[in-house]
């Protein structure tokens, strides 16, 4: 059976409770929006396949409970993440301030080369805005991250955000991937090589010595 994807990445959604992590995920994977959902207990995940530069990228997006006390459970999921969404709610100054805390946790627990992206969700709630777009841009710049304002409600910038992080992770893993590609090409050669080795083996067997195996 042909493989349904070429590479698989683990992405992680982080941010305070109620900023809309689960809603972003549901919008992206199922194109659904539930204004009210059941709070995430511990962790959960959804998957989706994107095609980037002709490569089928399977992304596995882990959703976490935002409440601080749940971090004893969720932190163990950081170490295998390759990309992280740091999400705040533009109508909540507090959730924006907490991004620094989330970012430092990521530094501490996630792999060094993890890619991050900053997301200000609920951009449709203009009247309630507490965090200016410029603040988001500034913070993202300070951390060297890309930044998107999104709305899971109106489906604004959702695909763009997820695709961008996937692209970045892909780029970061490009070297590995190139190796992988080469090995795919090599497979044929390898098969040929194995045949040769087989011949070699029998030849070695005949000789009865001079072989490592």
């Amino acid at each position: 059976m042909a493989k349904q994807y070429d590479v698989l990445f683990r992405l992680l959604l982080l941010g305070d409770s109620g900023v809309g992590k689960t809603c972003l995920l549901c919008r992206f994977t199922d194109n659904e929006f539930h204004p009210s959902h059941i709070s995430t207990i511990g962790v959960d995940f959804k998957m989706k396949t994107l095609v980037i530069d002709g490569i089928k990228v399977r992304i596995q997006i882990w959703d976490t409970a935002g409440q601080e006390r749940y971090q004893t459970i969720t932190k163990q999921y950081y170490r295998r993440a390759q990309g992280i969404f740091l999400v705040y709610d533009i109508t909540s100054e507090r959730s924006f301030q907490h991004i620094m805390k989330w970012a430092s946790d990521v530094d501490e627990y996630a792999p060094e080369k993890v890619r991050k992206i900053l997301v200000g969700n609920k951009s449709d709630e203009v009247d309630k805005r507490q965090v200016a777009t410029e603040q988001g841009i500034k913070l993202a710049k300070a951390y060297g991250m890309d930044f998107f304002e999104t709305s899971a409600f109106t489906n604004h910038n959702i695909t763009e955000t997820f695709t961008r992080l996937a692209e970045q992770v892909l780029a970061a893993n490009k070297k590995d991937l190139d190796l992988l590609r080469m090995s795919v090409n090599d497979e044929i050669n390898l098969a040929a090589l194995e045949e040769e080795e087989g011949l070699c083996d029998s030849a070695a067997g005949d000789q009865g010595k001079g072989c490592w195996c």
Partner: protein
Amino acid sequence: MEDLNNASPRPTAGGQTSSAHIHQSDVRFQRGVAPVSSPALPAARLTLPGVMDAEGRVDESRLRMHIFKNGGVSPSERGLVWRFLFGMYPCSSTALERSLLQEQLVERYRVMKRKWQQFLPSAVRLHLNGTDAELVAAVRYFDQRQAQAKLQTQDQPQEVQDRLAFLELQAQILDLSYYQGEGSGNLLVLRDILITYAAFHPDVSYAQGMNDLCSRFLEVLDSEVDTFWSFSCYMEKFSKDFRADGLHRKIELEAALLKELDPPLYAHLVTDNMESFTFCHRWLLLGFQREFEHSDALRLFEILSCDHLELISQQVDRARYQERLARRCSAEDSPKSKLQTINTAFTFELFICAAILLDNREFLLRCRDDVQLIQFTSSLQGTLDLNSTLKKAEHHLYNYCKRCAWDYMNGHCREHKSKDEDFLYQLRSLLVLK
């Protein structure tokens, strides 16, 4: 001895009478907002045979046994039963005493609620949709106030205790009809109950998931005050599981139990990349509230809360302990009864969880990482059959107890061949299934 041998588990928690309950509770009512209190209930009578005396006192162990044996009570009686089961009404109280108690509880709740409303006036007219700017602002105010109080000295710990917890209770439980339509006001009621709880339990405060549980109480009790007190009683026992340092407690116990019941499966699930039983966490924290169909989930919550099996196994354990003490007193004994005892921390819910795991043993053994485990957990949501799960869980519990008892008896009989009557009697009462 033969009794022990032949004691085949006869599961009862999923008995036949329960099927009638399911149908009844399937009929969901579209009700309005829950009243503050229910003044008629203190005098109401339980119809369960032999459970309530003429003055209205309740025979607690009989009530618990009844719930367990019949696999829950009928939905029409559930509201009253839960008031006793969770301890809002003491079982020893008479109907007369309860009506006084009810008045006190109403008043105490009113005072508590007014207290946080004074501190957080804007919360009174908060809307439910989304994360509320006002609430966030108010919470920040309280955070600052707390910080100031800390700076000033620690002279006013009580004042600090009044700090209010952050509640991001969005309209989260809309899948239940009780909270839809006219009932949507119940979300506000729920929020008030949770804020009041959080305000007066700053060490526990509010944790995601509490709303799931509290909403069950409100739906069944249909009264704000009674829900608050019953929920508080429940949390006395389980709040530790909602604290940061307690979130792992039940999953660690579950792992320990599975190690006893099925060492190979245990060994497989604790290997790398499995994230050590985290996939069971929600089941145990929320008492499987999302895994079974709604009315079954309520029934399970009731059965788990009646602690019937735990109480019996504790009796057995106590009997054994007393016996051991007695033997130690008889001088020449070597005090080396280090034999395996029944671990009373293994509650019935852990066996329910184990039953689900063992039921899916082959599949789990094929799982190679946490992704597959979480997928497994999600695939089970709302699909499990309660009666058969109960039967299997009971079966595992009895087998476990029986094995512990056998280990003990074997060791014990080698040393002593007499005076086991009392202990044997207790054991029999457990294994022959009351």
